[in-house]
């Protein structure tokens, strides 16, 4: 079914986060890198929700705390110091990062603030050792052009990246603090996006501007997109952590579908007369029914002396199996809530039974015990009584919300474009000043300096590259989307090698090598420049490029000259080539006698096969032709 996004009042706002490629972290001098090895340091902490003056505590945060959640942090000495461990106050704001954000902000016509104030945004899931994320607005009220439309940029901010979640064992969540403190730029658009496709286009446009600064990190995990999505009669939903640009439109599409289906379910429920107060938090211990069950999950729970608790959802029969988005039902949504609030593995409900080893007879007994009518649904959970109760409470609450419509919440993106319940939406932004960092003033002189060396906007650069270097549109686009647009110009200008050859190498050739598993990133820009300087001087053939790059990637810190020697790629002299050609003609005498000039193609093949990468093909052709003519 084609959805008319305008008619349903779709409004999407984007928040794009990208790591900056600085030499140090935002509030200390640690390397902004990750580590793969076993951690050198681990420590255990608890985060306690801070009370506000209004006596409010974020309910989800307080809930986590009461459950006794502990956080085990992992660190090594190269990528973290006492600052990340929250054992030393932060150092002053990294000005290199501020300049990058100012550059991007000015490119988006945003107005820098006069004085930067670092704030603490309360986050107590453990992803920040302090219990807050440090963040600051650098500029406000910008705008970018996307397909002729003005997209307002509400603010451009600078913030610290969070720790990486590594796993969870029982009540202990494991985070690695290497990523904590890596500077992130955040670009937030107004909610003016009205279709899934447009969301992707806007994200792409912002991404190109950020890349044009030349100072942002690349690769998986360096970019994260958050969205806020709402439709008429639906709710404002925040979706966190979309890592792939290509997924954005799908995420929007699915969220629209989810909200439309929830609205439909709510209408139907109300039509059949279900009221919120009908959903009672009355839990039945039904462990007895499953004493002999074939269901492995329940079996295991009972063996561990856990209980099976059940909840009746009046008139919900059939609704729990209603699909909201592909493979995602109202029942799935309830299970997500149960998992979050009750820490249970999942839930069972009568809309999907008998199955999983649960028999029709058991279902019948269950219905009888909880006094379920034909049109009621029953949800049950096997876990320790406390968790099971919390889980069923969450299910009851979600059922009530289903009667009302779409609940406002924060959701996390799954890799397939669907989303899962993450937490209730936090109330008013819980921000307060980071008093350990003095306000930083942005002077007019500083701004002038940055303005005077602003990188070209992607569209300007696109046109200039095509015009100046005679590249075609596709290659230019590829080059701009790669990380080598600047290197391209440097190489062409100093080596005088054909721009198309350089561009093809920096885009298609390198991409192909990466696909073969060659770690192209290990070859430095200087080495690439040196290779092209050699080609420009005629000392190397362009055919040698892939072999050279692949050798250099496997032999770090070795010179291009060494690679050339080891690979035997040194160009042979014209005299040597002439002698070689004579030898080939001699060896293929009969062929030459038979075909005369027409033997050129075959002979060319033989010579190139032996000398590829060491000769210039044009020269081989010319010499061969001369010789053949002289015969």
């Amino acid at each position, binding site marked *: 079914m084609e959805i008319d996004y305008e008619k349903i009042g779709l409004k999407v706002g984007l928040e794009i986060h990208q790591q900056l490629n600085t030499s140090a972290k935002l509030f200390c001098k640690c390397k902004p890198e990750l580590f793969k090895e076993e951690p050198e340091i681990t420590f255990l902490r608890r985060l306690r929700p*801070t009370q506000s*003056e209004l006596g409010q505590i974020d309910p989800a945060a307080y809930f986590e705390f009461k459950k006794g959640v502990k956080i085990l942090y992992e660190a090594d000495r190269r990528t973290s110091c006492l600052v990340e461990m*929250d*054992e030393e106050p932060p150092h002053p704001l990294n000005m290199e990062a501020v300049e990058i954000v100012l550059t991007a902000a000015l490119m988006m016509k945003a107005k820098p603030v006069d004085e930067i104030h670092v704030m603490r945004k309360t986050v107590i899931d453990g992803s920040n050792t302090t219990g807050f994320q440090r963040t600051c607005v650098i500029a*406000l009220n910008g705008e970018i052009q996307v397909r002729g439309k003005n997209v307002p940029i509400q603010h451009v901010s600078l913030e610290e990246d969070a720790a990486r979640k590594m796993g969870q064992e029982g009540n202990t969540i494991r985070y690695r603090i290497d990523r904590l403190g890596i500077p992130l730029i955040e670009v937030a658009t107004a909610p003016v996006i009205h279709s899934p496709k447009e969301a992707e286009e806007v994200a792409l446009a912002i991404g190109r501007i950020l890349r044009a600064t030349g100072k942002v990190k690349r690769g998986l995990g360096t970019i994260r997109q958050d969205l806020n999505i709402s439709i008429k009669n639906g709710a404002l939903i925040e979706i966190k952590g979309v890592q792939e640009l290509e997924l954005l439109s799908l995420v929007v599409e699915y969220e629209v579908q989810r909200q439309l289906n929830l609205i439909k379910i709510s209408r139907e429920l109300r039509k059949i007369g279900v009221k919120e107060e009908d959903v009672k938090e009355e839990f039945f211990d039904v462990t007895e029914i499953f004493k002999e069950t074939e269901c492995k999950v329940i079996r295991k729970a009972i063996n561990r002396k856990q209980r099976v608790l059940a909840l009746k959802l009046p008139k919900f029969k059939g609704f729990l199996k209603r699909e909201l988005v592909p493979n995602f039902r109202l029942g799935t949504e309830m299970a997500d809530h149960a998992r979050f609030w009750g820490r249970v593995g999942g839930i069972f409900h009568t809309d999907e039974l008998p199955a999983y080893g649960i028999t029709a007879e058991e279902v019948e007994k269950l219905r009888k015990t909880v006094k379920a009518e034909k049109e009621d649904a029953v949800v049950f959970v096997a876990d320790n009584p406390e968790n099971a109760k919390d889980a069923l409470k969450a299910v009851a609450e979600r059922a009530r919300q289903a009667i009302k419509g779409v609940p406002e919440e924060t959701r996390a993106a799954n890799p397939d474009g669907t989303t899962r319940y993450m937490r209730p939406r936090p109330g008013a*932004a819980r921000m307060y000043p980071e008093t350990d960092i003095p306000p930083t003033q942005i002077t007019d002189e500083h701004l002038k300096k940055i303005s005077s060396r602003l990188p070209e906007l992607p569209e300007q650069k696109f046109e200039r590259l095509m015009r100046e270097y005679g590249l075609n549109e596709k290659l230019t686009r590829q080059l701009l989307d790669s990380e080598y647009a600047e290197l391209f110009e440097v190489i062409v200008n100093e080596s005088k090698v054909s721009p198309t050859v350089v561009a093809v190498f920096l885009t298609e050739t390198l991409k192909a090598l990466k696909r073969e598993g060659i770690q192209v990133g290990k070859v430095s820009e200087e080495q690439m420049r040196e290779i092209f300087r050699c080609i420009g001087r005629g000392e190397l053939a362009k055919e040698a490029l892939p072999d050279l790059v692949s050798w250099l990637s496997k032999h770090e810190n070795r010179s291009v000259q060494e690679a050339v020697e080891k690979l035997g790629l040194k160009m042979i002299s014209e005299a040597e080539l002439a002698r070689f050609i004579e030898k080939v003609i001699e060896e293929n005498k009969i062929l030459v006698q038979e075909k005369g000039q027409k033997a050129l193609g075959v002979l060319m093949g033989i010579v190139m096969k032996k000398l590829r990468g060491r000769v210039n093909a044009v020269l081989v052709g010319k010499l061969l032709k001369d010789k053949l003519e002289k015969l």
Partner: protein
Amino acid sequence: MSEKEESGYKGEALKAIIKAEAEIGDIIRVTKNGQVYEGILIPRSEYGDEKHIVIKLKNGYNIGIRVTPDTKIEKIGKGVKPAFTPPPPPVQNPELPKVAVISTGGTIASRVDYRTGAVRPALTASDLYSVVPELSDIARIDTQILLSLFSENIEPKHWTEIAKNVAEKIEEGTEGVVVAHGTDTMGYTAAALSFALQNLPVPVILVGSQRSADRPSSDAATNLIGAVTAAAKAPFAEVAVAMHETTSDTAILLHRGTKVRKCHTSRRDAFKSINAPSLARIKDGKITMLTENYRKRDPTKKLVLKPEFSDKVALLKFHPGMNPSIIDWFVEKGYKGIILEGTGLGHVGRYCFESLRNAVKHNVIVAMTSQCIWGRVNMNVYDQGRDLQALGVIPLEDMLPETAVVKLMWIFGQTENVEEAKKLLKTNITGEFSPRTTFDKIGNK
């Protein structure tokens, strides 16, 4: 604007705000260079300049706007003062021991005003219960705000005040006292109370935090829970400091008041027992004693209060090239005692000898500790040490320099008699000397 002092604004910025008749917390609109900013007027921090005003935008962020001649400020809404009604205090379990919590400054619990960013201390009993609800399972708490001082502003006269206050609580029959204190000089106050409160029937526990209480990661609550647990249940009756054992929130160590020192500027585990084992560890609510050598809790004991201190005692750290006339200055100013923080086993340069001889001649007690922090002075090993003793310098074994200066201040609060003072200085009154030092880890583990 009426709250000029509190607001932190000065000069041009203040003028502009007054002209707009705006106060902290009001919603204002600032128009400048065609840009319009709306938000809540926020107080200016003490290190801010006079040119910027700070507003909190609707999205929660603060920004600073430079006030220029063509900056227009209008007040567009009145601020709403947050009214905080703390939740009713939990029902106190009459079975639980009574613990007095005396606050001297530093905040062990606080609340954030997200509206203006202000952090306010939470100090009443009901405040403490609502911020650290676990306390109601440990003890019945009675709180008192005695002082509101940064610990570097605490002086010997405050020790007197604190000691008297603690004594009062003990007289009233409390089963343990907690003293909340800024960490910088908490070690000194712990030593002071150790001398001032003798023959203790119950424990007196000092507690602080290395990370401010307004952040979710603060060590304040964990330390406070540890301190209250110790005050309520510990088997010892001594003055001790309760702080994190490691960087983790797992265990609280209790350090004897005369043997503890702040050894790191910022870490949670900054407090270390020096030249002595820690007294006890609290983990998962359980107290484990780490030494057999302690004075036991005994409610029948009668507290002896000796709260007077003299401030005519100095602590002097020797360094190469030190000008010895500083010693002469102390003598001229009528000081009664000088604690030297000498090098190594307890030495100072020979160029200080003349001034030291002069000090001793003027009846000034001169005693030696070591700037090595760990270890014991021994002034018999080298000539220099023997000569110093001959001059009348008293070696103070393994006593911490900070404890030594506090002890001598206390001694001169008790007696004017120099000979008696010397005798007291050499007597182990409250565990300030360890007779033997075992091989324990120092510094980096």
